[in-house]
């Protein structure tokens, strides 16, 4: 199939529609015994027209799922450490490092050092936490934007927003917005992963009235039977260590303390 050379240029060119040639129909067109009428066609899901494409899709999935089920070999490299100040996570595969870097170091607030999963959430955080103009405006109008992209709702307080996220967008009810920094321990130089209740040795019952910050940290499995107090603590992933502070950070594995 030979395409005119100018076509590729057209694709790269500016958007636009062609000025249509004049339309002039003869009533005899398409009349008996003829039957042609220009007509758009739609096909419902089960139509046999889709058979070929559906079969190809299925073959693709079979291939993909075979890969998923198999345990892939991961290329290993000599162990190395994350270079970000205060972080001594060790890796032996590049993918793991990239993921670590991306989730914990990439979108970091330079004011308070909290890490966010995306640029969008970081921007939201900076706006809500470090912009005094925002605070002023928030006194008079709804400024807390829903986090779900595409939802344009705004709220008066971050608690209202959380309420909305839970009821309207079905976020987990125990989904955590981090507490503001009231920790008793010294300021940590590393990524702002919240410290568990036990490690700080304190009473970390959250107060819902606090302004909330936008961070994605998750709770544990479903709470124990209701008699027990819920642990609102956030885990430190066991391999992250801090410069000082949390006692859990020093649980030893042979990978630790390579870079001190």
């Amino acid at each position, binding site marked *: 199939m030979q*395409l005119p050379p100018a076509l590729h240029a057209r694709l790269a060119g500016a958007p636009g529609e062609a000025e249509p040639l004049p339309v002039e129909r003869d009533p005899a067109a398409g009349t008996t015994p003829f039957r042609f009428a220009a007509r758009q066609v739609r096909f419902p899901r089960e139509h046999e027209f889709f058979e070929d494409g559906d079969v190809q899709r299925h073959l693709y999935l079979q291939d993909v799922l075979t890969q998923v089920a198999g345990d892939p070999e991961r290329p290993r490299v000599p162990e190395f450490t994350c270079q970000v100040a205060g972080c001594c996570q060790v890796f032996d595969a590049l993918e793991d490092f990239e993921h670590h870097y991306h989730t914990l170091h990439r979108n970091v607030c330079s004011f308070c050092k909290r890490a966010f999963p995306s640029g*969008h959430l970081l921007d939201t955080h900076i706006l809500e936490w470090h912009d005094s103009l925002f605070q002023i405006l928030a006194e008079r109008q709804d400024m807390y934007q829903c986090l779900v992209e595409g939802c344009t709702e705004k709220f008066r307080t971050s608690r209202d927003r959380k309420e909305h996220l839970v009821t309207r967008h079905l976020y987990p009810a125990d989904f955590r917005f981090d507490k503001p920094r009231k920790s008793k321990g010294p300021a940590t130089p590393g990524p702002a992963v919240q410290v568990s209740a036990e490690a700080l040795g304190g009473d970390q019952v959250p107060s819902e009235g606090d302004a909330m910050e936008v961070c994605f940290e998750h709770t544990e499995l479903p709470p124990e039977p209701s008699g027990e107090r819920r642990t609102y603590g956030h885990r430190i992933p066991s391999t992250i260590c801090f410069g000082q502070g949390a006692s859990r950070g020093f649980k030893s594995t042979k990978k630790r303390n390579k870079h001190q």
Partner: protein
Amino acid sequence: MRGRYRLSGLCSPLPVLILVQISSSSTMWSRRQRRLRPLSCGVEELRCRRREREAALRKARREQQLVSKRLLRDEDPEKAEGYVAVILGEAEIQQFLRLAQRGTEEKEREKALVSLRRGLQHPETQQAFIRLEGSIRTLVGLLTSNQALLQLEAARCLHELSHSEQSTVAEACLPATSYLLTYLSGHSSDFISPHLTVLEALGYALSQLLQAKEAPEKIIPSVLGSPLPQHMLQLLQPGPKLNLGVAVEFAWCLHYIICSQVNNALLITHGALSTLGLLLLDLAGAVQRTEDAGLELVGEELACPVLRCLSNLLTEAAVEAVGEQMQLRDERVVAALFILLQFFLQKQPSLLPEGLWLLNNLTANSPSFCTSLLSLDLIEPLLQLLSVSNVVSVLVLTVVCNIAEKGPAYCQRLWPGPLLPSLLDTLAFSDTEVVGQSLELLQLLFLYQPGAVQAFLQQSGLQALQRHEEVAQLQDRVRALQQTAQHG
């Protein structure tokens, strides 16, 4: 930028090496790294096996069984896994989940999830998982873990669960989907991230759910009432953040929603037509580039659902009601489509009908698009497709009819050129539908193009017509044309 750290500022040599690695792996359109099992059979045997698989799938589809999950599991006796899926009970599942979430040793946590995933290959384990309270919630937490390996294993668990014959699993995931999409979509595609794998798994799970029998009544309305459609469209925006594997899954999701015809007007108001149109342009651009480099392209996996979505959406009355921005009027779409058609002809001929279907829907009611085909010199390439198959030939002729029926100004531009010789060729076909469509086109040409009749007669057109005089579906039209040709 205020408030942000950037990747720059690392000064030791190793991170520089990593940077190099990252940039070389960010070509979205190159075929994914496939970790193939060592082959113990030849290429011919593989082809043969593939044909058998295809035949089995066609049969299944005709029996409406294609959605059946068990077909996704290729019963391959050569699978060298060396273990059998173990049935796990609720207690064991819970134990594995706790270990995965709270274990102190990374390896321990990983192993727990691997064990769980293997167990989930068995339907009874799947059901036990669904029954266990909080299991999905825990899984959601693991799907957003900041530890790559856990996240990946969790995604694979989700894959396994998606095969459950009961839709309860995917339904249970549905509420968490908005949350997961928000969390996972915020990444940059510079990094190879498990986020992408999880996103893909999520899209896949959703696509399975959307194919359920009850989907049009129960599931699709609630999906349409949530921000999910906007999320999905966002994941289909062309640009540096587009990931092929993720886009494929969500494009199929959109297709299942659209062809169920629940509320396509809503999708149009969300800009689905323009997003998908731009994506089509992007696909065509990628095809052009990689053809030069000779790289293999997995774009056909994405092309199919995109073509279907566009074609079906164009038929909605709502298209007329929205602003121009939301419509599809850009003639570059036609250019893109032809570039893709050429690609399909070489690599994936089974997609030609779908591409031509879109071309029909673009041209049927649009003088502008018909004019584009003429001014971009696309008639001749179009006619070159006539010998591919009967289905393709009928569609090609239909598109040309769409142009011709708009009157003399259009027929004039179709003439002279290869049209008449092509028509005389198609009249020699034995397929009734192909011949029938040729007759329709002839009528239009006779009506609108002076000189067409004479040229037809000169090139032995009457003989070409003769052979169909006795065919029931064709005879009336044949006679009418013979009369017009002979008596004017």
